[in-house]
C-alpha cells in the first residue's frame, strides 16, 4: 500500500480501534472489505479490529465492555429490519467516535429495502408457507405467536419496515455502492486512520452523475426521444454505445458517480446503487422524471405504450433506495381500505 508508511507513523501511539458490523444485507459489503486483499493485511497491522462477525470471534459483550467512544470508527453494512440489528446499531453508535454507513443497504435501505413493497406478515407467510419448495405443515413462524397459543416463538423482533441506518442512529459519513468498490472502502478507512474526516453527512464518490464519467458518454446524442424502452434480451445491443441511446433504460443520469462505471464496463446498464446526487431527496422520482422526459409523443396511446415498456417502475427506480424514499414503500393497505 502506497500510504502504508504514513499509516505506520500514525500507529506509533495507540492503535485505533475499528469495528465492522453486518445488519440486514447479503454479505457483499463484507466481500468489499476482503477484496482489499493484501491491503487489508496492512490495515490490520496498524489498527485493532475489535469486532467483525464475518471474520473474528468477538461477541456482543466484548463491544459492550468497551468505554463509550473507545472505537475510533465502525463500518456498518446492511439495513435495519430486526430488533437485534437496532440494538447493535445503537450499541456501536455509542461506542464509536465515527459511524460509517457501508454500502447501499446501510445508506439507502438497498435491495433488502424492496421488502417495503410488502407487509411483514405477507413476507413471513411467503417465506415460511407459500414458497413451493417449502413443506411445513406445522406452520410455525419463527417470529410472533406460536400457532398453538404457546406464546412467542422467536425472541427477536421483525420490523414492519426496513430502515436505512441513518433513521435509527446518526451516521457520520457514507460509503455508497452495492457493494462499494474496494477502493472506496479503502478511502473511507484511510480517512479515519489519517484523521482527515469529511464533513458530517458526506457521501463518498463523486458529486456528479455517473454519465459524467461513463466510458460510453461519447455516444449519447444531444437530444434523445424514444417511442418505448427495450429490455436487454429484446434487442441486439452495441457494447460500446450509450444504453439510453439504444433505448435500454440506464439510470446513470440520476445516479451518483464514483463507481468507475463497473456495470457499464461489464455491459450492464446502471441500476442506481450509488444513490441520488446531492440535494435530490428521492432517487426514484428523479429517475422517473428524466425517463419520462424521453417520451417522444404525448399522444395518450403512445404514452401508454411508453409507460408499459417500464414493467416495474417501482422496483426499477427504487431498486436500492425504496426504504429511503419519500413514500418509504407501499402504503398501508389495511388502513387505506377501511
Amino acid at each position, binding site marked *: 500500500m502506497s500510504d502504508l508508511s504514513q499509516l505506520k507513523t500514525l500507529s506509533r501511539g495507540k492503535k485505533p480501534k475499528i469495528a465492522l458490523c453486518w445488519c440486514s444485507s447479503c454479505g457483499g459489503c463484507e466481500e468489499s472489505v476482503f477484496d482489499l486483499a493484501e491491503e487489508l493485511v496492512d490495515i490490520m497491522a496498524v489498527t485493532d479490529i475489535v469486532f467483525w462477525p464475518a471474520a473474528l470471534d468477538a461477541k456482543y459483550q466484548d463491544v459492550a465492555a468497551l468505554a463509550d467512544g473507545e472505537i475510533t470508527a465502525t463500518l456498518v453494512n446492511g439495513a435495519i429490519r430486526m*430488533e437485534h440489528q*437496532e440494538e447493535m446499531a445503537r450499541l456501536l453508535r455509542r461506542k464509536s467516535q465515527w459511524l460509517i454507513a457501508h454500502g447501499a443497504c446501510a445508506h439507502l435501505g438497498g435491495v433488502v429495502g424492496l421488502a*417495503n*413493497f410488502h407487509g*411483514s*406478515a405477507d413476507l413471513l407467510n411467503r417465506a415460511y408457507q407459500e414458497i413451493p419448495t417449502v413443506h411445513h405443515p406445522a406452520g410455525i413462524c419463527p*417470529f*410472533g405467536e406460536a400457532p398453538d397459543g404457546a406464546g*412467542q416463538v*422467536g425472541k*427477536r*423482533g*421483525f*420490523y*414492519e*419496515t426496513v*430502515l436505512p441506518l441513518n*433513521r435509527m442512529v446518526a451516521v457520520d459519513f457514507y460509503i455508497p455502492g452495492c457493494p462499494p468498490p474496494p477502493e472506496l472502502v479503502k478511502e473511507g478507512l484511510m480517512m479515519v486512520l489519517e484523521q482527515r474526516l469529511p464533513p458530517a453527512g458526506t457521501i463518498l464518490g463523486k458529486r456528479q452523475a455517473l454519465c459524467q464519467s461513463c466510458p460510453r458518454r461519447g455516444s449519447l446524442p444531444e437530444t434523445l426521444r424514444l417511442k418505448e424502452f427495450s429490455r436487454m434480451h429484446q434487442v441486439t445491443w452495441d457494447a460500446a454505445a450509450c444504453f439510453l441511446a439504444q433505448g435500454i433504460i440506464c439510470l446513470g443520469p440520476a445516479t451518483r458517480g464514483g463507481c468507475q462505471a463497473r456495470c457499464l464496463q461489464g455491459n450492464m446498464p446502471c441500476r442506481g446503487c450509488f444513490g441520488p446526487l446531492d440535494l*435530490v*431527496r*428521492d432517487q*426514484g*422520482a*428523479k429517475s*422517473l*422524471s428524466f*425517463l*419520462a*422526459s424521453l*417520451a417522444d409523443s*404525448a399522444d395518450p396511446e403512445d*404514452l*401508454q405504450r*411508453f*409507460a408499459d415498456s*417500464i414493467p*416495474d*417502475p*417501482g*422496483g426499477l*427506480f427504487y431498486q436500492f433506495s425504496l426504504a429511503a*424514499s*419519500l*413514500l*418509504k*414503500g*407501499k*402504503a*398501508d*393497505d389495511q*388502513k*387505506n381500505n*377501511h
Partner: protein
Amino acid sequence: MTVFEPRIVGFLCGWCAYEGADAAGRARKTYPAHLRIVRVLCSGRVDPQFVLEAFRQGADGVMILGCHPGECHYKEGNLQALKMTAILKKLLGQCGIQEERLRLDWVAAGEYGKLVKIVGEMVEKVKSLGPLRLREDGGGINSALTRH
C-alpha cells in the same frame, strides 16, 4: 364519527389554471376549501418529488393543473407534465396509492367554471377513497419501535 375532510394540494400553472382560480374568485364562484394551491411557473415544473412530498406531508390527493395542450407558455411544459404523470400514476399504484389521488387536468385562464367543477369532483373522489395513510417508520411484531 368525524367527517373526513380531505386535504388536496394543487400545483397550478401561473399562466392559466392559477389565473382561472383568480377568475373564479372575481366571479364570486366558490370551490371547496379543501384545495391548497401552490402556484408554479409551469405544470412542467412539477417534479415528481413535489407530488410525493405532498403525499408525505399529509395530502390525500394532488392536482396538477396546466394549460391546454398547444397553449403552454413554454411550448411543451404541460406535455412534460403529462408524460411524467403517466409513469408516476403507475408508480403510485405499486406503492398502494390509488391513481385517482393524482389528477392532471387543463384549465385555461378564463375557465373558472371548469376549475370549480374539477376541484369539486376531486374532493368527492378523494372523500370516497378515504384518508391516505402512508408507510411510517414503524415496527412490526414484537417491535421495539411500536412499543415506545
